[in-house]
């Protein structure tokens, strides 16, 4: 079976295919953003404030009269970027720390996991606020903050998998053949840790977008007039009774993106685990 057939397997899994379609659609919108927006997402039009959906503004306008469709399209780029970058920031060090802690155990484990416990002891949003406040409130630092906050989650998940994997015969057998720790970790332990990481990372993308939005709401994330979905959602909350569409459309966009990542992650997990594959 080649890599190409692996991709075919992925497409045959409806969940992965649906997730991939949603992500691909949002990606296309994000990449083609400026070509698709009917209005400038950043220029206010005070006369058109809080209009409902119409042919001129399919998603309506917000409190400053900006076209919500254009802002949702513009925000796609930001949200995908937030999701991918903050998850990467938590996933890479988290996985590495979890691998080392679980595999080598003893004092390395204690040292790493106690540090992780310290990070976990803070409420996530408080820690993120602290980090952005120290760094400087902007989008980049929001992503870094959200990334750091979730490092312990990945470390714990990976450590737990490693602890059970290192007892498995096939992992020990590599050592019996004379294989090095590096080989055992990279070739045998890490690949078998991937399914839980993927599932958690896809969920994490959504969480990251929401966390970034919360920071934006507090004035520590994406700064106005940037059309970040979470920030738009928070902003729309003020008008939820007189103009629900202001919050509804960015909310729906977040829902769709998170749904896409979740479906894709689940499908990918099934395909990656050959023993779960239906024959």
């Amino acid at each position, binding site marked *: *079976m080649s890599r190409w057939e692996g991709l075919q397997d992925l497409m045959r899994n409806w969940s992965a295919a649906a997730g991939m379609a949603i992500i691909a659609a949002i990606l296309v919108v994000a990449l083609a953003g400026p070509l698709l927006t009917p209005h400038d997402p950043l220029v206010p039009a005070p006369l058109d404030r809080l209009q409902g959906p119409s042919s001129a503004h399919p998603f309506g306008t917000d409190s400053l009269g900006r076209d919500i469709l254009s802002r949702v399209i513009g925000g796609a780029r930001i949200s995908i970027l937030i999701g991918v970058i903050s998850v990467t920031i938590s996933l890479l060090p988290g996985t590495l720390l979890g691998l080392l802690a679980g595999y080598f155990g003893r004092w390395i484990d204690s040292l790493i996991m106690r540090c992780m416990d310290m990070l976990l002891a803070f409420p996530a949003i408080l820690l993120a606020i602290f980090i952005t406040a120290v760094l400087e409130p902007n989008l980049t630092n929001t992503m870094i903050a959200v990334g750091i906050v979730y490092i312990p989650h990945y470390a714990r998940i990976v450590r737990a998998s490693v602890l059970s994997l290192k007892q*498995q*015969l*096939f*992992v020990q*057998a*590599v*050592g*019996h*053949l*004379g*294989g*090095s720790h590096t*080989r055992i970790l990279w070739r*045998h332990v890490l*690949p*078998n840790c991937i399914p839980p990481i993927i599932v958690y990372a896809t969920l994490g993308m959504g969480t990251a977008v929401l966390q970034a939005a919360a920071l934006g709401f507090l004035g520590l994330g994406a700064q106005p007039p940037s059309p970040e979905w979470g920030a738009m959602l928070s902003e729309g909350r003020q008008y939820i009774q007189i103009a629900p569409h202001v919050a509804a459309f960015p909310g729906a966009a977040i829902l769709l993106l998170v749904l896409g990542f979740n479906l894709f992650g689940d499908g990918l997990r099934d395909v990656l*685990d*050959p*023993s779960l594959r239906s024959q």
Partner: protein
Amino acid sequence: MTEALLRAEDLVMHYPTKAGGRPGRRGTAVKAVDGVSLAVQPGEVFGLVGESGCGKSTLGRLLLRIEAPTAGRVFFEGQDLGGFDRGRLKRFRRQAQIIYQDPYSALNPRQRVGRIIAEPLEIHGIGTATERQQRVAELLQVVGLRPGQAVRYPHEFSGGQRQRIVIARALALNPRLILADEPVSALDVSIQAQVINLLEELKGRFGLTYIFISHDLSVVEHISDRVAVMYLGRLVELAEREVFYQRPLHPYAQALLSAAPVPDPDAPRQRQILKGDVPSPINPPSGCTFHPRCPHQMPVCVEERPGLRELAPGHWVACHLY
């Protein structure tokens, strides 16, 4: 006698247990292997039998230095494994391979079979990628699988086929010694015979030496040249196969053999039913550890641990009766 391929001297393996909380109880240990000496000759099949928990597998792991013993030494071709640095230990791994009891968990579920079998070659830097592929194809044929099956995943194979894959991986480096730790216990009886025959065939073909661990006396009788019986971490009897099966001397070995099923329903049988359970290896009985269950118990058995003595050429027994 020629020089032994593998020789063990007074191997001891104690696993410390958690201290019971009381100060006086500290320092208890599971005595998994408690003073075992043996020598495995090149080209022989050395059978190691005993009931579960008697330390067979631990002894196997010590012999191949998967674990370092608490005390005692193991010599491979006259060289002390304990003195090996990492490089020499890695070279030793090329000579000594393991076949595991459970072929379901011995193979990485995420790797294709070809990759699994090529792994020992990769680890020891043997051949180019193409040469390794050829070697994998050859090995698959040697163990009775098709070279085309190299692209499959382990879960696509049956237990017996998986054990063949494990065997192919063990053969990849042309080892001299193979530790077969209950290699057929996890398989169906019909498959057991096939795998045993394969092991015998491979032994002749590649001049292998086996340490064959099993609790199945009939399998051991079929394949072994010599048989050693283990009880609570100690060897109690060691003899040539024919001698052992016709005239076992140690009361424990006699009881074991009398418990083994015989294919002839009319054969006269004298079952010796042992009293009680195997005592805890944390706190084994004094003297001869078998004395609480032994039908021939004498006062000396409680006092003094019997040493392994050679009663007839090649027939060693640890019992005060003789």
